[in-house]
C-alpha cells in the first residue's frame, strides 16, 4: 500500500485488515483513524490541504495546524442557502418538504397550501422572525397603495424615535437605522406614485445586506426600548432581569426572536399601524390544520401580516384572496361528504381501480352516479371551515406533473363491514400504493356504460348543495311574511 495515495479508504477498518502485511503501516493507520474519528469534521480539512496530502503527516499535526483546524472548527457556520427574502412562491413547496414527514405535519401543510396558497421564505440566518415581520409590514403598506397612509407611517416611525431617546440611545447611534426604515417607506411612496406593478423593488431592498440589517436593527432597538419602557407587561414572562434580556436576546445581531420579543415587536412597532398580525403554528399538535394565533388587537383584515411559524423559523404566508380566487376550482360537494356508510348499504358500490386513472372522476361520484338526493344526513351541517379542505388538495395535486409522492396516510379499506366507522375525510387512499380506491355504482361496471362515463354536472342550484356556504358572498334567503314572491 502506498502512502502517497491518500484516500479515505485508507482509514476504513476493512482496509486495515486487508493490508496488515506491514505492521508499521497498520499501526499508523489504526492510530490515525482512531485519532481522527472524534474530530473528523474539523480535521477533515486536513485532507483537502496540500500540506497534509501525504497521509504520513496525519499522525503528527503541528501545533500550528491544530490551531488552524480548531479555528476553522470554531468559526464554522452552516452555509444557509437562498436569498434573505424570497420571491412569492407556492406553498406547495412547504407541503412537499413535509410529504415524507410525520403524517400530522403532512396533513397540516397540505391543508395550509389550500388556505394560504402563497408563501415567502425567509433565510434562516437568525434574523428570520424580525425580517418576516419587517418585510410583512412594508409589503402590507405597499399592497394598500395608499400614499396618505404611508405619510402617516413615516411620521409615526419618526415619532417612535422618542422611545429610543427615553432609554438613552444617542441619535448618532440610531440615526442610520431610522434612516434605513424611512428610506424604504419613501421608496414605497414613490413606487405607488409611479404605479409600480409588484413588490419586487421591496424584495430587492430587503436583499441588500446592509440596508436589510439596518431596518432589522431599527426594529430590534425599538422593541428593546419598548420592553424597557413597559416592564410590567413583559417582566413576568422573562427568565431573567429585563435589561439582561434585552441585551442578550433582543439587541444582539442575529439573535432569534422569541415569543416575548415577537409580542413586544408587534405591540411596540406594528400595532400603531393598524395592521393585524397572525401567526400560524405548524407543529405536531392534534388537528388537521395549523393553529392560528392573533398577536395584535387589530382584527385580521386585508391589512394583516401572516407568519408561518415552524419551530425556530418564520416565513410569510398569503391567504386565498377574496376578490380574486387563486385556488384551483374543485367540486366542493365532494369535500362536504364525510360518511359513505349510506352508500355502502343502499348501493353496493364496487371498487374499480382502472377507472381511477381518470383524474377527476372522484369529484362527482356521489352525485354523478345518479344517486338519490335525499340522503344528506351524512353531510356535516356546519358550513365547512376553509381549513378543512385537505382532501381536495390531494385531488388536484394528483394531476400535477412531477409531483412528489403523497405521503401514505393510513386508510381503512372500504371492504370493511358496513357498520364500521366510515373512513374520515383525510383518509384518502394513497396513490403511491396500489392505486386509489373508490366505490362505484354497479351501473358503471356494465360494459355498455363503461365507455361513456357519467359526467353529470352537480346540481349547482340544488338546495342540497352546500357548496355555496364556501362563497363569501353567500346570503341565505330569508322568508318574510310580507314577501309576495
Amino acid at each position, binding site marked *: 500500500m502506498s502512502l502517497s495515495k491518500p484516500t479515505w479508504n485508507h482509514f476504513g*477498518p476493512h482496509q486495515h485488515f486487508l493490508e496488515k502485511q506491514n505492521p508499521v503501516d497498520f499501526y499508523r493507520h489504526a492510530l490515525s483513524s482512531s485519532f481522527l474519528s472524534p474530530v473528523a469534521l474539523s480535521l477533515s480539512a486536513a485532507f*483537502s490541504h496540500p500540506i497534509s496530502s501525504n497521509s504520513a503527516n496525519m499522525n503528527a499535526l503541528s501545533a500550528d495546524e491544530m490551531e488552524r483546524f480548531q479555528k476553522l472548527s470554531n468559526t464554522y457556520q452552516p452555509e444557509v442557502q437562498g436569498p434573505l427574502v424570497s420571491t412569492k412562491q407556492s406553498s406547495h413547496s412547504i407541503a412537499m418538504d413535509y410529504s415524507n414527514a410525520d403524517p400530522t405535519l403532512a396533513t397540516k401543510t397540505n391543508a395550509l397550501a389550500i388556505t394560504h396558497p402563497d408563501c415567502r421564505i425567509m433565510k434562516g440566518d437568525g434574523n428570520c422572525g424580525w425580517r418576516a415581520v419587517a418585510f410583512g409590514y412594508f409589503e402590507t403598506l405597499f399592497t394598500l397603495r395608499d400614499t396618505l397612509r404611508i405619510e402617516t407611517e413615516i411620521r409615526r416611525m419618526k415619532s417612535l424615535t422618542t422611545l429610543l431617546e427615553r432609554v438613552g*440611545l444617542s441619535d448618532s447611534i440610531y440615526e442610520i437605522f431610522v434612516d434605513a426604515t424611512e428610506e424604504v417607506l419613501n421608496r414605497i411612496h414613490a413606487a405607488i406614485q409611479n404605479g409600480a406593478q409588484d413588490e419586487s423593488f421591496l424584495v430587492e431592498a430587503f436583499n441588500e445586506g446592509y440596508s436589510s*440589517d439596518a431596518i432589522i*436593527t431599527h426594529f430590534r432597538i425599538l422593541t428593546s426600548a419598548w420592553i424597557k419602557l413597559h416592564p410590567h407587561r413583559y417582566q413576568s414572562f422573562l427568565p431573567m432581569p429585563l435589561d439582561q434580556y434585552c441585551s442578550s436576546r433582543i439587541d*444582539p445581531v442575529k439573535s432569534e426572536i422569541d415569543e416575548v420579543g415577537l409580542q413586544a415587536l408587534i405591540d411596540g412597532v406594528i400595532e400603531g399601524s393598524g395592521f393585524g398580525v397572525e401567526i400560524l403554528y405548524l407543529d405536531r399538535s392534534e388537528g388537521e390544520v395549523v393553529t392560528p394565533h392573533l398577536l395584535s388587537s387589530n382584527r385580521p383584515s386585508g391589512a394583516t401580516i401572516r407568519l408561518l411559524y415552524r419551530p425556530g423559523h418564520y416565513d410569510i404566508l398569503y391567504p386565498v384572496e377574496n376578490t380574486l380566487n387563486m385556488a384551483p376550482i374543485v367540486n366542493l360537494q365532494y369535500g362536504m361528504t364525510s360518511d359513505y356508510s349510506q352508500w355502502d348499504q343502499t348501493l353496493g358500490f364496487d371498487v374499480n381501480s382502472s377507472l381511477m386513472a381518470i383524474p377527476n372522476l372522484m369529484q362527482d361520484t356521489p352525485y354523478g352516479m345518479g344517486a338519490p338526493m335525499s340522503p344528506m344526513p351524512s353531510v356535516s351541517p356546519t358550513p365547512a371551515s376553509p381549513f378543512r379542505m385537505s382532501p381536495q388538495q390531494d385531488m388536484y395535486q394528483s394531476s400535477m406533473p412531477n409531483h412528489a409522492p403523497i405521503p401514505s396516510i393510513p386508510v381503512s379499506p372500504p371492504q370493511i363491514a358496513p357498520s364500521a366507522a366510515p373512513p374520515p375525510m383525510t383518509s384518502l387512499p394513497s396513490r403511491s400504493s396500489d392505486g386509489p380506491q373508490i366505490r362505484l355504482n354497479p351501473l358503471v361496471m356494465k360494459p355498455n356504460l363503461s365507455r361513456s362515463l357519467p359526467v353529470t354536472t352537480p346540481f349547482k342550484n340544488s338546495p342540497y348543495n352546500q357548496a355555496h356556504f364556501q362563497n363569501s358572498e353567500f346570503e341565505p334567503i330569508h322568508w318574510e311574511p310580507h314577501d309576495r314572491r
Partner: protein
Amino acid sequence: MDYSMEDTQNSAPEAQQANKLHTSGQKTDTQSVTKRLQAELMQLMLSPSPGISAFPDADGNLLSWTATITGPTETPYEGLILKLSFEFPNNYPYSPPTVLFKTPIYHPNVDFSGRICLDILKDKWSAVYNVSSVLLSLQSLLGEPNNASPLNAQAAELWDSDQAEFKRHVLARHQDLDDE
C-alpha cells in the same frame, strides 16, 4: 460498509471555504460603514469619556483604529496606559470589530496575544454598540474580570487568592508601547 458519507465530509470544508470567499466578495456598503465610523469619531472628539480615547490609524484606512484605555483607579491597572487595536469588518456595525490589546497585559480574560474574551465582542454584539461603549466595557472588565471563563487561568486564580501578587504580575508584564 459505505464510505460515501465520509467522502462528503472530506470534501465539505473545501467547498465551504470556496463559499466563504464568495460571500466576502458580496456587495458591501463601504460608504455606510465609513459614514457610521465618521459619526463615531465625531462623537468621541466632541464628548470624550474620561480614561478612553480612539483614533483611526494614520494610513487613512478608516477600518482600523488605535485606542487607549487608562487603567481605572483602585484596580491593579491604576495609571497604566493600555493600547488596543480595532479592526472593523465591511458590514460594521452588523458584525463586531476585532479588538486586541497591543500593550502586554496580565488579565484573566486576555490571553498572551492580547485576544479578549468578552461576550459583547462575540455573540452578544449589538449594532448599537460602538467604539466608545466597547472601550468603556473593557475599562470595567479591568476592574471586574469575569473569572468564570478565563483565558488566563493563572491570573483568574491569583485574582481571587492574592491581589498583591496579582498586581506584581500586572506590573511585571506591562510595557509602555512607544508611539509609532
